[in-house]
């Protein structure tokens, strides 16, 4: 059941973004920025976490989930460190994703050769 939910919810989010892309011609970079920002806003409004608990990877794998985890980090750090936590939580929560992407990305750029565009 959790796999079906992940498939349907993840697929639905991507389908909605496809509709937006086809109708606005927004570039991929802008789409990614928008998704992360919308994710953190939905997180702050208290909408994304319950949705994410229900949908599992269907909600955490899309970049909306990345935005939500940024907000979760800010909220958690704020509880521990007060106002300083607002500056701390975002990077703490996204550390694995950002470090992973940069480190594997760097290693990838060393290992792989650029391909000719067909």
């Amino acid at each position, binding site marked *: 059941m959790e796999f079906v939910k992940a498939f349907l919810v993840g697929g639905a989010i991507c389908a909605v973004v496809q509709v937006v892309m086809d109708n606005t011609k927004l570039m991929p970079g802008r789409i990614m920025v928008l998704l992360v920002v919308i994710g953190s806003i939905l997180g702050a409004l208290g909408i994304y976490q319950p949705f994410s608990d229900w949908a599992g990877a269907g909600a955490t794998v899309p970049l909306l989930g990345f935005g939500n985890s940024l907000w979760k980090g800010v909220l958690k750090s704020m509880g521990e460190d007060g106002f300083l936590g607002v500056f701390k939580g975002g990077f703490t929560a996204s550390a694995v994703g950002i470090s992973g*992407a940069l480190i594997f990305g760097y290693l990838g750029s060393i290992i792989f050769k650029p391909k000719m565009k067909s």
Partner: protein
Amino acid sequence: MEVNKKAYEAYVKEVTPVNKKLPNIIKAFLVGGIICTIGQICTTLIMNQGVEKDTASAWTTLILIAASVILTGLNIYPKITKFGGAGALVPITGFANSVVAPAVEFKAEGQVFGIGCKIFTIAGPVILYGILSSWILGVIAYVLKAFGIV
């Protein structure tokens, strides 16, 4: 001739978007759905080892990023993107792809100005606006809490 031209234009307008958009949406749904299902399989398998949900999600993120980097390097992920559109862009694998792809492409320009700069082409804006928006929301929440509103 004039009538024919107008009729043809109307025909093109009528046929092109409709024929292109629906398959695009279905393909995005399938590819996005499959990537999220793979993510769920990873999360479930890791949680079965007695790992907490948030930790399992972090491991899943790491696995998906590594897989995406390898598939990008082997020139497979660009094909998935070409087919799946938003389905390949929206998941965290699309973010990983956007980090490694320019780094590989511009490696000839050197460690600093090639890989170092280009690795942040998409990651830079995503990290900046992600951190900024969550900070703004955090400040709002902090102020609301201080005044006892929330």
